[in-house]
């Protein structure tokens, strides 16, 4: 890869200052997530007074405003938290694994696999319900990532560069096949353009519960690998000399990425940008320590997602914009402003 990792040239300043900044930032991120979560329950296209929201949560009745909370706002908030965290951590993992600060989970073919499987389900098998095709999405993501991992593997292990290229190639082939299926089937095209936009509304909670334990497992995997990934950031050989088991780390990371991004995509559709931007920005703030990047990503990614969702509800009220369309508009200006302000930015 021509894009080299961001080697933050922190001045060898007192470590205490860095640590203080990391903690302060973490508190701020936690506060942001809390605020955004509350907003997500309070704000929507239907103006509902805070007291009514309170009643809806703790003293529900057959009031339509209560239904608006319990049927729609609460589930989408929960979905947003889970999906956002999953995209954030999987992004952090893929960036560490490939040592490419601009990688996103889609680079391993997760989105391509999920989209292809959903298109097959919709176009050839006639599935037309989110409950039906979310499992296709999940299995599609899983299978394709395994294929990419296999293609990117050599006798000596996995080369991140080859893996990324393999992911792009597999993604291209599947993307073309997906489009070929939709372009010859107007009804599949119609469903896929909706699914492809990415939304966290209209996902019944009963489809989210079975995915949550998988996300939990993936989270644990991510934490297990974080120390090894830190070592690997300095180079495979150095890491190996420190006793890091490269193959094991890579396989565990890929498993975690697949479960997280695959599960999140299955629920919400291919929501882009969150998984790319959040860990990238987190690295700018906390430096190249994977554990801190994970902690920030798990808080900031759902914040970005839910903030985008809230914005999507109010900006076109009484209608709505699906969250997948809004995330880039919330995130990209921040990313651009930050990259312009940075003094040293790699390469």
């Amino acid at each position: 890869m021509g894009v080299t990792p961001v080697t933050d040239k922190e001045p060898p300043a007192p470590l205490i200052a860095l640590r203080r900044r990391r903690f302060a930032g973490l508190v701020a991120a936690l506060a942001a997530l809390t605020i955004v979560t509350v907003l997500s329950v309070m704000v929507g296209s239907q103006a509902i007074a805070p007291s009514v929201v309170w009643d809806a949560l703790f003293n529900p009745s057959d009031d339509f405003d209560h239904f608006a909370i319990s049927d729609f706002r609460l589930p989408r908030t929960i979905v947003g938290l889970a999906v956002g965290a999953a995209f954030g951590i999987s992004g952090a993992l893929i960036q560490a694994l490939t040592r490419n600060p601009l990688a996103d989970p889609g680079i391993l073919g997760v989105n391509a696999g999920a989209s292809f499987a959903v298109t097959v389900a919709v176009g050839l098998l006639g599935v037309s319900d989110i409950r039906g095709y979310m499992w296709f999405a999940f299995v599609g993501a899983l299978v394709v990532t395994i294929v990419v991992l296999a293609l990117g593997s050599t006798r000596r292990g996995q080369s991140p560069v080859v893996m990324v290229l393999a992911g792009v190639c597999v993604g291209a082939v599947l993307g073309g096949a997906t489009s070929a299926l939709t372009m010859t089937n107007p009804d599949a095209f119609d469903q896929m353009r909706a699914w492809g936009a990415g939304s966290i509304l209209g996902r019944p909670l009963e489809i989210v519960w079975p995915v949550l334990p998988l996300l939990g497992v993936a989270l644990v995997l991510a934490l297990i690998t974080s120390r090894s990934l830190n070592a690997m950031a300095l180079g495979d050989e150095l890491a190996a000399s420190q006793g890091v088991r490269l193959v094991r780390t890579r396989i565990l990371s890929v498993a975690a990425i697949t479960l997280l991004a695959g599960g999140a995509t299955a629920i919400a559709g291919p929501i882009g940008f969150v998984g790319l931007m959040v860990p990238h920005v987190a690295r700018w703030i906390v430096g190249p320590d994977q554990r801190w990047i994970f902690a920030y990503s798990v808080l900031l990614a759902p914040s970005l997602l839910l903030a985008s969702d809230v914005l999507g509800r109010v900006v076109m009220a009484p209608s709505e914009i699906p969250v997948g369309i809004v995330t880039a508009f919330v995130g990209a200006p921040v990313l651009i402003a930050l990259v312009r302000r940075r003094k040293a930015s790699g390469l």
Partner: protein
Amino acid sequence: MIIPSLRRPTAVLTAALLGVSLVLSAAIGASAQETRTIDADNGTIEAPANPQRIATLGRANGSFLALGGKPIAVTKLRQGDFDALLEDQQAAYEAATLLGTSASEADLEKLASLKPDLIFISVPNADFEQMKEKLEAIAPTILLGFHSDWKRRVEVVAEASNKVDVLNKQKADYDQQVAAIKTKYAETIKNDTFVEVGSGEFSKVAVFHLNGSTCTEVVRADVGLDIADLGEGGQSRSYEQIGALADYDVILYPVDHKGNVTEAFRPMTESSAWQALPAVKSGRTVGIYCPLDRSYPGNSRYMESLDRGLAALPKDE
């Protein structure tokens, strides 16, 4: 009126002669490539007076099929539009050569090899402009603007394909049907307020539509239901605003050709908010079947579903 006069032998003879000469002139006309001028959206077109091999592209597919036409070549219909056709119309569609999924990607060499004598096309302007010269090299081409009024579209298609009598029959049947519904449900129409809610297409993510289908205009203008005009395409609302439906006496919601709620709308009907709507609780909902592609037979199917739904409504207390 005519029948008694036919009893007279001379009249019979005259009629017979007239008939023969008509048939003859038609045959001669066809062989001499007699043409007629059609006022289409791409100008005044000299089209054969008696076209035999007609190809249709884009929205013109449905217009021609609904008139009982037998195209030699078509572009792909959506499942919903196909389902809306009658059985023999479906057979006519399936017998035709498929040129492509969308008109802009149609295989024009294949079309040329089928030697059509007339082409109907209804596609967005950008698509037509890039195909115009190729199509016109194959056969006289009649463009009906993509956003053109469907009534005009079927009229032009009927005129150019010699099916004006079929169209008039369909129109008459439809008017009769509407008149019957108006008298049968006069009281409901007068007293109740209606709202049509829909999400006929999957693309409307996270929103439902009020009075947005192409059929809303039909029930308002033709049947006279009390249903608000919210402009073309209606108004899209967030799922959260489902409570707004509580203000209406009767809710019209979308069903497919079999009468089942459409897949795209099903999540809405499964929410507890929907179940709690007064109209839903009292069974005052009407599943309506609104075919996307507009035609008189399509409108008739729509009226049938309305008729069934209104008949099933519980009587006012």
